Each structure stands twice: as C-alpha cells, then as structure tokens.
C-alpha cells in the first residue's frame, strides 16, 4: 500500500502548477470571458503540455500515464480555474476522438457549455457516444451565463451523429469524466481555502487581522478539512480506476464526486463570506470559484444522485 505521491507524480504536479501560473494567471483567466472560455494560444499550451494526450499510449503519441496522473493534472487545472471543455476533450481523446476541442453532452440536457469554441460535440445516450460537428447543432446562446467563464447555449435541435463508442465504453468515459471533474473540484476547493486564508491574514478590523478571530479562523479550518477529505477520496477513485484499488470502484467514484462537489460548493460560499462585502463584488475572484463549483457540481451527476447511488450500495 502506498497512498502518497511518488517522485514522478510530484514532478508532474509541480510542472502543471508552474504551467498554470505562467499561462493562466487570474488576469488571463478573466480575459477568456471575451473569447468563450478558450483562446488558441493558451489552449495550445495545454495541448503541448500533453494535458489531452496524457493517458493515450506512447504508440499513439501520448504519455501512457495512469488515471492517477490525470487526477493530479486536473486538480491543478481546477486550482487555477482554467476554463474550457478540458475534461471532455481529455476523456474522449483518450478513447479515440479526433484531436479537436470537444464538448461532452448528455443528450437529455437542455444546456450545453462552450459550444462556440468547440469543434465537436460528443452526445451521450443509452446507446453510446455520438460525434456531431458543432455547425450541425442549432442552439441559442445564453445572454448571461451563471459562470462568466462557462458560456452556455440552449440546444434547439441536434442530429444523431456518428457513433464513436458503444454504451459500455460511453459509460466508462462518463466514469472517467466524473473523477476528473471531481479532481477539478478538489483543486477549486483548495484554491478557495487559500484565497480565504490569504484575505483573513491581511484584512484588519477592530485593530487586528480578521483571521485571528475564531469566528473567521474556524470557517477557514472547516474549508481545509472539507478539501483534504475530498482530496483523499478523489485520489482513491483514481487509484481504483487504475485497477489498484482496495474496494468497490463504482462506490469510490461516486463518493469522490459527492465529497468534491460538496467541498467546492461549500468552500466557495465560505470564501465569499470570509471576504465580507468585498466578496460580493465582481472584482474579487471568490465568485468565479463559487460559480465554477456550482456548474461542475451539477455535472456528471448531482450530489443528490450520487448520494442515492451511495445509499444503494449499502
């Protein structure tokens, strides 16, 4: 048993963290609102870093890495709040989708994110996963999306498309997307903790920094606690998908998504609260984390659905 990052994994983590700091500082992330969440140059940096080919075999031009490596990478992408259909493009390319920007879409869902920047939509339904060219879809843009960095369209019509994989493979893709979305949520939950703690160390009221007050300190401690427990669960889910788990894989995945969603959502609200009035302004980043958490928490199964799945496993 070894549930600790090895030297390669720590190097991967440091590498992707550096890339995010260099290419996706918050100023750039905010700029991406103007271009539908993706801009060619910074997307290219992700492609070049191997974010989308990470788990493809070396023969197919990938790095041949495991799910746990992808979990580490997507945690950092979440921490940096990098927008775009990152998980979607990664999980489908790993299973043979074309090298384009791709959005994964549940065919029953009315909303579809990042449609303006995607080349391809992969629609999931009971029979499998279907590829549809972006220009074959009729949809209306949402004038004011909840998350300014996750633009949305309302779908009016969508053709059946070309089948990429069957239902079993589609379910596997969905499982992987669930875990990597959970990884992003854990990164967001940690970033929210860091943001709140930094503000609590700097903001003064009543003549001292507010982080010295237990009323504020305890909010921060709860934030860290939620993020740490969720991280352990998400790493464990990755280990299970690599076939190195110690229990029920489906349960590990669903529990990880549940904890990560709840951690990022609750920490997002706590982060706004710690910032007080400033937290309610557009200028402070707290709302961007909270809104992304809300979008990702509702993706690949809501917390209620995952809680039902957990209960059914008992």
């Amino acid at each position, binding site marked *: *048993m*070894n*549930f*600790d*990052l*090895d030297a390669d*994994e720590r190097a991967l983590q440091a590498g992707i963290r550096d890339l995010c700091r260099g290419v996706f500082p918050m100023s750039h992330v905010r700029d991406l609102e103007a271009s539908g969440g993706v801009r060619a140059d910074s997307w290219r940096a992700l492609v070049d870093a191997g974010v989308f080919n990470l788990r493809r075999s070396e023969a197919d031009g990938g790095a041949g890495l495991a799910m*746990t490596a992808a979990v580490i990478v997507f945690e950092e992408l979440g921490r940096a709040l990098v927008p775009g259909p990152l998980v979607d493009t990664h999980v489908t390319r790993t299973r043979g989708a074309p090298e384009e920007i791709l959005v994964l879409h549940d065919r029953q869902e009315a909303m579809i994110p990042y449609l303006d920047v995607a080349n391809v939509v992969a629609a999931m339904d009971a029979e499998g996963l279907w590829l549809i060219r972006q220009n074959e879809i009729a949809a209306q843009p949402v004038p004011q999306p909840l998350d300014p960095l996750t633009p949305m369209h309302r779908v009016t019509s969508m053709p059946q498309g070309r089948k990429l994989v069957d239902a079993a493979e589609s379910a596997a893709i969905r499982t992987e997307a669930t875990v990597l979305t959970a990884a992003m949520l854990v990164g967001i939950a940690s970033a929210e*903790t860091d943001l709140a*703690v930094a503000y*609590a*160390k700097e903001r003064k009221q009543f003549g*001292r*920094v507010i*982080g*010295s*007050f*237990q009323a504020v*300190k*305890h909010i*921060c*401690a*709860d934030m*860290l*606690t*939620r993020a*740490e*427990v*969720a991280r*352990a*669960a998400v*790493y*464990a889910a*990755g*280990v*299970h998908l690599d076939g*190195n*788990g*110690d229990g029920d894989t489906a*349960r*590990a995945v*669903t*529990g*990880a998504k*549940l*904890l990560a969603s*709840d951690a990022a959502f609750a920490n997002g609200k706590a982060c706004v609260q710690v910032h007080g009035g400033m937290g309610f302004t557009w200028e402070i980043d707290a709302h961007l984390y909270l809104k992304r958490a809300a979008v990702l928490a509702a993706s690949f199964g809501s*917390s*209620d659905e*995952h*809680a*039902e*799945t*957990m*209960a059914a*496993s*008992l």
Partner: protein
Amino acid sequence: MDLRYSESDERFRAEVRAWLSDAVPKLPPKPGPHDWAARRAWDTTWQRMLHDAGYAGINWPAEFGGRGASPTEHLIFLEECERAGAPYVGVNFVGLLHAGPTLIAEGTAEQKARHLPKILSGEEVWCQGFSEPGAGSDLASLQTRAVLDGDHYVVNGQKIWTSFAHVADFGELLVRTDPDAPKHKGITWLILPMDAPGIEVRPLRTIAGSSEFSEVFFTDVRIPVENRVGNENDGWRVAMVTFSFERGTAFVGELLHSMKLVSSLAELARKIPRGDGTVWDDAGVRRELGHIAAELDGLWHLTKKTITEAERTGVPGVGGSVFKLSYSEVRHKLGDLAMKVLGSSAFAMEDGEAADHVRGWIHAMSISIAAGTSQIQRNIVGERVLGLPKEPS
C-alpha cells in the same frame, strides 16, 4: 499510488486473522457495564492473550517489548480486530496508547523496565490525570500543586475526566511545580501510584449512564521524586511528545465501527415501517445515509494517506486534527440520522441493534469534546496548518 496491500502485508493479515478466529471465541462472556472489577479482568485477560501471541504493543518498538509493526500492519491489525469482533483496548487504553509511549520517549531506564512489560502483559492498568475542573481546553492552566519535600513531591488538588481511575494501578499526572513561571513552563509529569494515601476517587456518571470517568482528589499525596518523567517544569513538553508517537491510527477502530453502524442503519431503515412502506422510502434518509457513507469512505482514504505519508517522512502530518474534526462531524450526522430513522424504537435502550445506534448518538457528543474539542481542533488547524494568528488573550 496503490491502495492494494503487499504480499507481506497480506501474509501478516492472514496470520492475524487465523489467530483472532481462534482466540476471540475463547474469551469469557463480556461482563456488564457497571461491574468494574470484572471489566478490568476481562480487558486484561484479552491483553494477556495478545501478549502471549506476540501482538501486544503492536506499534511499540521491538526493543521495548512491542511488535514493531509498521503503520500499515497496525492498520491491518485494527481492521482484522474489528472484523473479528475482538475487544478494543478497554481499560488498557491509557497504558498502551499514552503512558507507555510517553515512557518509551522520555522515561528513565528504571521507569521503562518497571512499567513497560507490565503494561504489555495486562498486569498494570493506567489512568490519566491531566484535565482539571478549571483546566479543560486550556489544559496548561492546571492548578494541582506539587511541592518538593525531601525526596518526595507532595501533591494537593483535583483532577477530572480520569478514565478508569477506580481500576487503575498507576496514573500519568500533570502537576504545577512552579506557580510563578509562565503556565507552560511550570508543569511536571509524574507517575502516580494509585494506592498512595490521600487519593480519593469519585466516579462520575456520564450522559451515557456509565461511569468510566472519575474525579480524583489529592490531599498531601506523597510521590517519590524518582517517579518524575523528564525534568522538573518540563512536563508540558513531555505530555506533548506522546502525540508524535501517534501516526494516524488513533481512530481506525472507531472509524471501522462507524462504517458497520452505517450498514446496520441502512438495514434497519429498510425494515422499520413508516407510512405505507418503510423508512427507506424517504429520499431524505437515503441521501443523508449516502453522504455519511461517502464521508466515512473519504476518512478511510485519508487515514491511508496519513499513514503512508508518515511511513515516508517518519512524522505525523497534519492529518490528525483534520481527521478528528471531520470524523466528529460525521459521527454527529450518523447519530442524528439514526434517531430520525428509529423514531420511538430509540426510547428503549435495552433493545439490541437499535440501542447500539442510540448509544452511538450519545457517544458522538463525547467524540467532539474529548481529546480536544472540535473548537480547539479548528484552532489547531487554523493556526498550525493554515498559519492564522492566535486570538490575543
């Protein structure tokens, strides 16, 4: 990362499992909760059996008579004990998990030789005299006074929350030896012989109805200087040293037991009639159970993470306070949900499975208080992990 156990770990598991399946049925019936003499005998009998089989002090270093097991083996051992329904440490709690490790780290050769073998064999039971009526969360403000008189300390004062005091042979005692020094700098750690004249033990009845805790009163109790562990006025550091011995396994037995309770509560909910169906038809109940199960699974994974990080670095990480905080919360949720699921079946404490859940609900209230309240844990996480400044006193 790999959550599977190695071949040698699996061999260890098989060996422990085989021994437990043979040993547990040999235990006499468990005595009633109020028969303390019998409880001590039962717990120490089990300790003797562990000792004779080479499992006593599973995580103690071999040079002090322990098994010298790795944290992973310790985890496996606790997993197998829970699986086999083996007793937990019981009255041996303080000796095995606290006093023994303190003596290993800070005791003299004589102190080690005198006490460690008997703690391991179940011949010596210890209790802990740390908290006082006026020193709970602010433990360092303790007032029980010890004054040097020749080759003895003379102790006067009062302790509280002393687990198993009425069946203990020795106690770990923190006393004030320098009332003029800053509060952390005037404390001394003493080995207290419970048969010394001047000690009065008064059991406390808890909200669980039981009496494992006592108040202990000291009137001119004479303790030989040779019973001092560490230097005079260095007792706070000695008391804190023990915590570094703990490498993420303190709550494993608790956690595994809670996982069992969740499964049992799901079964009960499927059986207990409500409305036209059962409690299980209530989506609110199912989802809350799902959340609790996910949180306990998460804590199980966090335990493994803490343990393997400790194996790499040799020191416990920040996992302890984070774990306890989160575990306390989830135990409260589990207990509260059990009360909702049980309805009026919770009103009769003698009924088997339901009563386990009611006792669990009451137990949750001690988990968020004992060994550092959740509020103190949040201060520790906030200050030592997140680096937030202390609240000015």
